[in-house]
């Protein structure tokens, strides 16, 4: 496919689509989501790179099961100690997927705006999608991860503190992203609700999809059900989207499809009525 390279700002080529996976709050599933979304995009034939912005708390390589293949990292590339090709790790399962790991030994301040721009710029020339896995919080690292984004996947758990933090990060996307600063079209926002447990929603122990949508007022990309499969997959270093038989895997697959513009009905949002036997034997 032929595409024109258009230079919008100081040489950032608008070729690849840059997607940030962010949340404000920690532990809600950003890295799990980054791994699955990037894998899903790559499996559909899009050349995809996923960048770990969590300098000092490197996790993505574990989830992607490439921790033993890390030689150079993001900060090495920014500081000119390695080339991008030396640092990029090609995924063993999906050959159109690459991982740019974070540095475990540096500080987040090593990510400079110019350095990140140069790396993203270079990646833009050859990749279709650049997925930026943001660190938790709203400080420098998180701001660097979202700065160049075209789209944002805001990962939220169905509880009030997570919703509040997501709201905060949405505000930062609107005011501190490059698109905001340049007065361009705003960053396209997507809500991804993770760790959703319909039974607990019914008991009133969790916010419902409707509650969260109503508060955050952004379009829903998907609902990932709470599942033991997610934990197991993380421990084994498999992006959960590759667990095609599981609810969570299918939910991520749906989310990727919607991200690419497909219409898909939302699933896994209502409690399964347990039959007599499953209640008897599975508790």
């Amino acid at each position, binding site marked *: 496919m032929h595409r024109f390279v258009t230079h919008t700002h100081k040489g950032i080529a608008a070729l690849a689509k840059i997607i940030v996976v962010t949340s404000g709050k920690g532990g809600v599933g950003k890295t799990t989501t980054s791994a699955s979304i990037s894998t899903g995009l790559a499996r559909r034939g899009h050349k995809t790179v996923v960048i770990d912005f969590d300098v000092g708390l490197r996790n993505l390589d574990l989830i992607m099961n490439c921790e033993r293949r890390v030689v150079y990292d993001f900060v090495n590339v920014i500081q000119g100690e390695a080339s991008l090709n030396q640092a990029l790790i090609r995924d063993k399962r999906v050959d159109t997927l690459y991982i740019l790991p974070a540095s475990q030994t540096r500080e987040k301040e090593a990510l400079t705006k110019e350095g990140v721009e140069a790396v993203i710029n270079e990646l833009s020339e050859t990749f279709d999608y650049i997925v930026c896995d943001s660190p938790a919080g*709203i400080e420098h690292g998180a701001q660097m991860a979202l700065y160049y984004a075209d789209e944002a996947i805001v990962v939220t758990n169905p509880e009030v503190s997570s919703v*509040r*933090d997501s*709201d*905060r990060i*949405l*505000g*930062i996307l*609107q*005011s501190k992203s490059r698109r905001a600063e340049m007065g361009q079209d*705003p960053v396209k926002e997507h809500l991804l609700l993770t760790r959703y447990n319909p039974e607990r929603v019914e008991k009133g122990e969790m916010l419902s999809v409707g509650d969260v949508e109503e*508060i955050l*007022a952004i379009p829903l990309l998907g609902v990932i059900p709470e599942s033991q499969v997610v934990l197991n997959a993380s421990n084994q270093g498999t992006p959960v989207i590759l667990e095609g038989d599981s609810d969570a895997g299918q939910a991520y697959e749906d989310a990727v499809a919607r991200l690419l513009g497909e219409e898909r009905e939302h699933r896994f949002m209502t409690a399964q009525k347990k039959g007599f036997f499953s209640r008897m034997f599975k508790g």
Partner: protein
Amino acid sequence: MTQMTTDASQCFQLKSASVSLTALELYFFDEQAFEATLRDKISQAPGFFKDIPLVVSLEKYEGVSSELDFFKLIGSCRRHNIHVIGVRGGTDDHRRMARNAALALLPAAASRDAARSQEETTASDSTEATTPVTEKAPEGKPAKIVTQPVRSGQQVYAPEGDLIILAPVQAGAEVLAAGNIHVYGPLRGRALAGIHGATGARVFCQSLEAELVSIAGHYKISEDLQESGWKTAAQILLKDDVLVALPLDKA
């Protein structure tokens, strides 16, 4: 620069202007008590007080004259980014002290006309053109219109006129206006209307879920807003110095 054809030699012109100001009604002065009260007030609505001009009203001052130290008072205010620009009312003694502290002298609120004649005799000709303080609301100021949600941590400020928001104001957000505030969506954050002292300002919203609502410095926090109009379309206005929330469908 092209010069004005009418008066090429003049570099400025004096114009009469009306502005609404916040008045600090001082009952007595003790530096520590003053500082503590000020800090307390500011902590309740930090955005409200930033860089506002303030007039110290001395009509109800009952403390000892010797304790009234304008330099300390101005210092306290400056530390909190509040600019004391003058005093209103007060005895001749107080006003002389205020003048020594380079403050403007404004006539007392109640007996303005009587005081004005006195003012003219005491004030030197250089202060003659100072802006008169009137209760007139700002006229013809265009409203500021916001179409995006105001998110947690964001602040939207309309220094003149009304503020209209066609989206939710989220918990942890703050909206401020010199005039009225309209929120066509839920109001979950803080809304401060009439921040320059317009007591006639109101706050309107489609669902009252606010953390704090303030009109001309009178405020109520979420806890005190629960009884009336909570989570319904409501307007909040100032009635006899008390904030009242009224359902909009019965307005």
